[in-house]
């Protein structure tokens, strides 16, 4: 059993209440940081921990924090990115819903480290009910003296608010999130300047994912060096993985980074293998944006070594044979799955979610959706595969924000590894058209 630092208490009754949370060691990091550490001490521990952003990009959190500008007389902000919208990802929702105080505690400790006196949790609008849970937790924290003026009798004061979004994947991009928090359309900003210099209301701002902020609490308690001992190489600590698709036990799992992928998929402690004892066909390991890999390449890299759940191991081989850890949205597809039809649902997603600011993304995502639609409807042309390849190439790297890349990579990887399936659709439309390539609800109920 691996070490758990974030959701080890998730099954304790009423852990969502402040009293029970505190009985199990909750808010200790606030006490420790505010009473015995300087803000800079906290930043240093986070740097030592090697913690990397858990939203998907994997940027070192301590470094991001150290970029924060600190001009005199200008407020600084900490904004939590709880916009979790990457298909296949639902870990932040789980954490916030089950243990809301873990995020509230992390927000207080992190805000103290950054010298922020106002902080916001920007949560996707569809998670409205989760915002209620957070608001209740925040209310309790105010009443207990963990928020508000002179927290725990110190000079430090902090106000924490929850902001709900309106339904837009793009607001998970940090500058789009800030635009949205300012009451505007979620159009990503051109960088530089980065939020650390000019973020919310033009003030220095740090934007961190829910899981990243929650991880600050155990780091402060155990020390950055101890945290860094967990994991492998530059992939330190634990990671929440959202597991879904054709597995026996979908759900959120906290793993020590470095766990073999094979163990994660087949062990009863985690996914419990493929439903109905079928064969695994492919995996998207880090949320829908990362390249899909066929079963043999997700279990072993191109050198035949076992693939591990780390940032480095999953990306070994580059995009030719590797992928990314991303947000940890782990989607497993069995042998019955149509890769082409699945890709169509993703292309439709990215077209729907493109903000429309950059033409390669706005137009390209629409074209890719249309072409894939005609292929799955049995009207594909032999030239369509190269056309799709060409379009995704022209989107990648040519947009203000990474949504363009996120839309391009699934298409590129599906063609790279499953070109024969596209050809089959195009050459034998009558054979493919009426085959149902997904499980029916009743099939699953009986599974």
């Amino acid at each position, binding site marked *: 059993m691996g070490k758990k630092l974030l959701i080890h208490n998730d099954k304790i009754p009423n852990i969502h209440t402040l009293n029970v949370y505190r009985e199990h060691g909750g808010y200790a990091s606030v006490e420790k940081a505010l009473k015995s550490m300087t803000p800079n001490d906290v930043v240093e521990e986070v740097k030592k921990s090697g913690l990397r952003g858990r939203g998907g990009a994997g940027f070192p959190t301590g470094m991001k924090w150290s970029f924060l500008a600190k001009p005199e007389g200008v*407020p600084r902000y900490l904004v939590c990115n709880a916009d*979790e919208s*990457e*298909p*296949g*990802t*639902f870990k932040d*929702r*789980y954490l916030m*819903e089950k243990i809301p105080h873990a995020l509230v505690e992390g927000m207080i400790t992190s805000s103290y480290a950054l010298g922020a006196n106002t902080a*916001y949790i920007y949560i*996707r*609008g*569809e*998670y*409205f*009910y989760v915002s*209620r849970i957070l608001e209740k937790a925040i209310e309790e924290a105010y009443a207990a003296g963990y928020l508000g003026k002179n927290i725990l009798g110190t000079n430090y004061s902090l106000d924490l*608010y929850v*902001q*709900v*979004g*309106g*339904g*837009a*994947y793009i607001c998970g991009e940090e500058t789009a999130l800030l635009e949205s*928090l*300012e*009451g*505007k*359309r*979620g159009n990503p900003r051109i960088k530089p300047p980065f939020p650390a210099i000019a973020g919310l*209301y033009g003030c220095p701002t740090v934007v961190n994912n829910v899981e990243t902020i929650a991880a600050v609490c155990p780091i402060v308690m155990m020390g950055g060096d101890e945290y860094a001992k967990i994991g492998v190489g530059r992939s330190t600590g634990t990671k929440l993985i*959202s597991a*879904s*698709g*054709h597995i026996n036990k*979908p*759900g*959120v799992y906290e793993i020590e980074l470095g766990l073999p992928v094979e163990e994660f998929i087949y062990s009863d402690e985690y996914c419990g293998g493929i439903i109905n004892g079928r064969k695994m066909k492919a995996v*998207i390991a880090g949320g*829908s944006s990362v390249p899909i890999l066929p079963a043999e390449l997700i279990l072993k890299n191109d050198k035949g070594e076992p693939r591990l759940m780390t940032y480095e191991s999953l990306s070994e081989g580059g995009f030719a044979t590797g992928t990314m850890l991303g947000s940890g*949205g782990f*989607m497993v*597809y069995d042998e019955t*799955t149509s890769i082409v*039809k*699945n890709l169509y*649902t*993703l292309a*439709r*997603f990215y077209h*729907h*979610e493109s903000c429309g600011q950059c033409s390669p993304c706005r137009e390209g995502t629409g074209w890719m959706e249309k072409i894939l639609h005609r292929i799955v409807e049995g009207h594909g042309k032999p030239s369509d595969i190269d056309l799709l390849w060409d379009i995704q190439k022209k989107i990648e790297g040519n947009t203000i924000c990474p949504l363009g890349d996120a839309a391009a990579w699934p298409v590129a990887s599906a063609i790279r590894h499953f070109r024969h399936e596209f050809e089959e659709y195009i050459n034998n439309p009558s054979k493919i058209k009426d085959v149902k390539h*997904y*499980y029916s*609800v*009743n099939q*699953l*109920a009986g599974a």
Partner: protein
Amino acid sequence: MGNEIKFNEEAMATVNKIIARYPQGKQKSALLPVLHVAQAEFGGWLSPETMDYVASILNIKPIEVYEVASFYSMFNLKPVGKCLLEVCRTSSCWVRGAEDVVKHIEKRLGIKEGETTKDGMFTLKTVECLGSCGTAPMLQCGASYHENLTMEKVDALLDEYRAASKLRSYTDMDYKNTL
């Protein structure tokens, strides 16, 4: 719902509480949360009159409200049924039978995706990933997530909603979630 677009006392108190979260002069930040309140208060959608009213409360131009309301998928710019059924259709839900759920609801209600039943009770919509991939297939209605759906569960839900006959909003406090 009366004809006059004006928040009642309770809704106005909520709106003022939202505005107070932001620094002086940054009240535009309240726009998304206030639009959610407005949509819930004024029939489940945002008419031009409702949006103009929100603009007047936040002291911003009407266009600043329109451009935002039209950007985000949760704001309805046309009337919808009392129960807006939003079925997730993205990858993990798709591989676990989301299409069956949509077809089943279409058959039960006699409407197609995007349509509203004649009695104004239900609107059926397909939406993109709602973060319920481990509990797929699923649908959202108002504040509630209904997960690990089976046809029986869908039927029971439709019956329950029809009997209750009330407007379901994202801001509802009586949510159900099944994670």
